[in-house]
């Protein structure tokens, strides 16, 4: 992972078993997905906001930067639904645009949901190492190794694309290939880079797969793990924190009406 994605300090969230963390977050997301209760979803969003800002170990500056798209996405899903959504209790109408009580309700709900999804996603991504996550998925939840290694390899291929761009730039330079100026040159450049980059990534993926099989990797065979993962006391703490705070959120949301 690039240096930008290393936290200032590793909080307790990092030590939670990554696969367990994933499962719990998935559960929370499912709950969010199936509720249509605005206060509940809003409080959940607040909860995840606290988790992300308070316990991910990243400086506020980076977190704010990351949150910008989340806010935009909140606003855009909310407004579209408000302006075009169905509803009978019309508050305001202008041509095809119509705002009704229902559409406001609905818009806010959608917006808050997408905000929650974003916050949970970042909290997970920022506090987990992809490789360890897949190792844990294999060890704790019996994810077939063929999927785990395919994902590990694919994610690791991504930084290599940057390397590939570099290689290609060098090759084009050394071979004395020049581009026109202006828009035409831009077009030529895009052509000289994109398709070869794609082809190279596919070729690399194929080679990696062949190399893995040549190292006697067999789909479905028993194996040991270089990075062992297991459950620990911190996982119990984590589950406890989640249960208590979700209960709290429910109380806040449903206890008030």
């Amino acid at each position, binding site marked *: 992972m690039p240096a930008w994605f290393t936290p200032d300090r590793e909080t307790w969230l990092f030590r939670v078993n990554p696969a367990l963390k994933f499962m719990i977050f*998935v559960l929370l*997301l*499912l709950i969010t*997905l199936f509720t*249509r209760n605005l206060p509940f979803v809003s409080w959940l969003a607040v909860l995840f906001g606290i988790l992300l800002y308070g316990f991910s170990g990243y400086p506020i500056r980076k977190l704010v930067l990351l949150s910008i*798209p*989340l806010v*935009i*996405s909140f*606003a*855009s*899903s909310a*407004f*579209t*639904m408000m302006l*075009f*959504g*169905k509803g009978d209790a019309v508050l305001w109408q202008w041509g*095809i645009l*119509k705002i009704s009580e229902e559409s406001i309700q*609905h818009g806010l709900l*959608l917006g808050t*949901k*997408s905000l*929650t*999804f*974003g916050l*949970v*996603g*970042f909290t*997970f*991504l920022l506090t987990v190492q992809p490789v360890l996550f897949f190792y844990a998925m294999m060890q704790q939840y019996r994810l077939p190794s*063929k*999927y785990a*290694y*395919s*994902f590990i*390899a*694919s*994610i690791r*291929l*991504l930084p290599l694309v940057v390397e590939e761009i570099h290689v290609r730039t060098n090759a084009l330079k050394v071979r004395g290939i020049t581009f026109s100026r202006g828009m035409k040159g831009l077009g030529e450049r895009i052509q000289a880079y994109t*398709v*070869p980059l*794609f*082809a190279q*990534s*596919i*070729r690399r*993926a*194929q080679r*990696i*797969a*062949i190399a*893995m*099989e040549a190292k006697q*990797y067999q*789909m479905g065979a028993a194996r040991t793990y270089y990075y062992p993962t297991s459950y620990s006391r911190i996982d119990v703490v984590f589950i406890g924190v989640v249960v208590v705070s979700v209960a709290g959120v429910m109380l806040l949301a449903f206890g008030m009406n």
Partner: protein
Amino acid sequence: MKKLTFTDLLITIMVGVVFGILMKFWDDLYTVVKPMMPVARQLLYGMWFMNGVFAFLLIRKPGVALIASIAGAGLSAFIGHGLEVLIYGFAQGLAAELLFAAFRYRKFSMIIAGLGGILSCAASFGLDMFYGYADLETWALVVKYGLRAISAFIFTGVFAVLIVRALEATGVTQSIRPVAKEEYSLLDR
């Protein structure tokens, strides 16, 4: 039909992951455009259906469209889209996969690819209804999903096909696709 080898699987998932990342960037563009230009944003939507169709056109094996679609959605779910994307990915991939299966994985034309996109689009419409994204006035509904279907066709039937053709020129597809039966019969000459 040939089963997926580990090589096929790895390439499929890599294609999915790459599309997952592309979709994230696409989505940022999309969210900016969304409130401002409702028509343009629907025309950008086809990108979401490209993943599975592209993977299938590339590798031409059963299961590829579905797996790539899930892998891409799974990744983009966690880089900021939320879990529902995963369900969408599954439904869209499945729709395209069923279409290709109906043609016994032997047709790769623009029409079939485009149809794959349109079916994915239909699947996503089904889910939209379920989640309440489709609670729109009828006229808005028709315009929105009509434009979206056109966009689906353009992205999968035109763009995906063109990119795959460009890749064919680099020779890379030859080594990852199943070998044609005729090639085997040429061995007996």
